């Protein structure tokens, strides 16, 4: 700062002041931006934008099984420039699947992935959507007599066979099992659940050793009644003819039955075959509280559903049936 003639130069002094003030303002700016980022207001939209809109309508969207299917469908669809929206069954008003179909049709979606739970008017809505130029794909439970373009799920005959193959050896070795209850939400004669029940029943009745000893009963879980599952399960487990083995055909029922067995202190007395490998179900397997569980590949189901609907949107054609992988896992598989 010292000049040759001994005078102090003004420049560095002013420059120092200016630099300090500028640094202070950079600091304030950083604080400001951090606050705005925290409020998530700097960028109004951070989500990806897509070309197509697909609605996914299922009976129990909160189910871990459906959440997983949705996750895989969404991921696969994103690669095809499609967005999959999982329709909620409503907050203030409880919507039926038909209502959700009406909403989706009116919203002008490009495609619909729907689980046919057998509710009233759903088939008409599938046809209505199709007539409106919306491609519909059914998942898990088919609606073959509609204008849906494809079905993604298990073949019920194959599933029934899988259950029978696993059940018969168990029943032969464990002679204490005399009554089997099969909980089903969809009791339509042409529904998947009934098909599975029917196949198991046919196989058991065809077996000489078991036909007289074992009785299999279908227990319907009412869809129209809120929280009806637990009520029906407890009634069944406390009933006069107490089942020694329970078969569940959906993940929500599996969890409810398992919890009821624990609550009612029936572990060991009542055995169960579950559905889907949710953490609770896997826990039950590990503790030997569950014989086995049917695991349907949610990845297959999600990805195939997305593929089917987007193919149909793009080309108007797709396979009419996509088979997903399914297998039973027991406590040995989860150790």
């Amino acid at each position, binding site marked *: 700062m010292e000049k040759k003639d*001994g*005078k*102090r*130069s*003004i*420049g560095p*002094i*002013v420059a*120092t*002041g200016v630099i*300090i*003030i500028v640094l*202070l*303002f950079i600091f*304030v700016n950083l*604080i*400001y931006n951090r*606050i*705005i980022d*925290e*409020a*998530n*207001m700097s960028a109004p*939209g*951070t*989500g*990806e*934008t*897509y*070309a*197509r*809109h697909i609605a996914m309508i299922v009976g129990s969207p909160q189910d871990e099984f459906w959440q997983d299917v949705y996750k895989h469908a969404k991921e696969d669809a*994103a690669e095809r420039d499609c*967005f999959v*929206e999982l329709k909620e069954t*409503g*907050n*203030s*008003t409880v919507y039926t699947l038909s*209502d959700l179909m*009406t*909403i989706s*049709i*009116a*919203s*002008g*979606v490009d495609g619909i992935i729907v689980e046919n739970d057998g509710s009233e008017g759903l088939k008409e809505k599938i046809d209505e959507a199709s007539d409106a130029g919306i491609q519909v794909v059914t998942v898990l439970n088919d609606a073959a007599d509609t204008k849906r373009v494809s079905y993604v799920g298990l073949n019920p005959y194959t599933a029934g066979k899988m259950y029978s193959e696993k059940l018969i050896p168990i029943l032969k070795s464990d002679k204490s099992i005399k009554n089997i209850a099969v909980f089903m939400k969809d009791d339509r004669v042409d529904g998947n659940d009934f098909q599975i029940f029917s196949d198991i029943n046919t196989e058991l009745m065809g077996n000489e050793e078991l036909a007289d000893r074992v009785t299999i009963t279908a227990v319907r879980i009412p869809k129209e009644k809120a929280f009806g599952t637990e009520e029906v399960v407890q009634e069944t487990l406390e009933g006069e003819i107490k089942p020694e083995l329970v078969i569940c055909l959906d993940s929500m029922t599996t969890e409810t039955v398992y919890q009821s067995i624990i609550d009612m202190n029936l572990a060991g007395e009542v055995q169960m075959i579950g559905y889907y490998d949710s953490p609770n179900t896997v826990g039950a397997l590990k503790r030997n509280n569950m014989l086995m569980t049917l695991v349907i590949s949610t990845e297959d189901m999600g990805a195939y559903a997305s593929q089917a609907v987007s193919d149909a949107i793009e080309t108007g054609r797709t396979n009419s049936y996509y088979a997903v992988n399914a297998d039973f896992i027991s406590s040995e598989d989860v150790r």
Partner: protein
Amino acid sequence: MKRRSIGEIWEDLPVAKKILVEMLFVGIALLVSNMLLYLRINDLVDRLNSVYSVNLNLTDLSDSLNEVQENMYRYLEIRDYDSLSNYYRSEEEFRQQYRTLSDEIVDEPVKIMERNIRGMSESFLAAADRAVSAKRGNNVDAYVANYETAMKLYNYIGDSVSTLNREQFISNRQNYLTLQRALRTMEITSVLILIAVMAVTIALLPALTRNIISPIVERELMMQNHLKEAQLRFLQSQINPHFLFNCLNAGVQLAEMEDDERTSVFLERMADFFRYNVKKGNEESTIREEVEMVNNYIYILNVRFAGEIDFKTDIDDSVLDCHMPSMILQPIVENSVNHGIRGQEADSSIFLTVRDGGDDIEIIVRDTGTGMTEEQINSIFEKSGNISESGSTGIGMDNVISRLRLFFDRDDVLEIYSEGLDKGTSVSIRIPKREEEDVQNTGS
């Protein structure tokens, strides 16, 4: 023309303008700080205000939807012209409002909800239009069916708008709280920043002020030095011609009387005397040189006045190399000769004593001549106080005192003692010891 740098322009600015620039710098720094902080806080307040505007728009949309439904119902019920025109008006309003909703397919729940509401609103209006047209065409079945479809959609839209409103409200509430906190943080930060800017500018002010003031102080000091030097040179210049004339006269007289060796000695001493005068143009000299000067002077005087001036010396050789201003002792001795002993009939003497007084060196010129009254002594000191007066006193005693005082920066450097008339006079000089080395150090 050579362009001047900012530094040069600054150097040339008058002090008043420099201070003005300094104040402007502080003012602008504070103003800019305030402005920037104000803009930021303003931005935050705007954001805060806009947080719930989305909810207000949705409420408007809901009101508009209700109006369409009411007008449609009224027309289907009573089929009057007013209801129809109201229906078309409300339909147009509703259309404008729902078209502000997003139509993009974005992976954001709110955006997707907006898109669904928009799509359902279009379907609702289409069904409502069909119902109204069927009513106008008296097609009862068609208008009832379309009315039912429209009502179903109306309920779905209402539900969706409520859900969206709630979602927005929840997300906005979070934003609102965050922004409110942000606003408080910014307010505190603003105060801190202003204090910091103030502190920085105030910290810089002394440096800037020094930058302005220091050249003035330096100039002031240099001027004082120059003035001192000028005064010294002025005082010295008074001495040279004063004595030169007398000496030349003495030389002439001596030459007239005899042309022998003494003359040559005399002239040699004269030469030494003047050489010293010329050489010692500067104010510094040693005591040795000063004593020699006095010896020469006395010799010249003895030659001049053809009589022996009784001059005795008592010199401490150890201090002879110490420094003092030139042309000090000779005027004092001259003073003793002229005012002390000349014209005295009785034997008069002049004593020169140089002795080591510890920290100081004491030089005393004492005569046994006419002596001085206290008034006379005071008068000499009073004259010496006013050095700007040209030396009209003849002997230059005031000149000597002034120079000594300036040189040593002490008032008591010279003292004059006399016990009264005919009792002789003693001039005592006390000077601090300053050897050659010290002088060089202080002088550099």
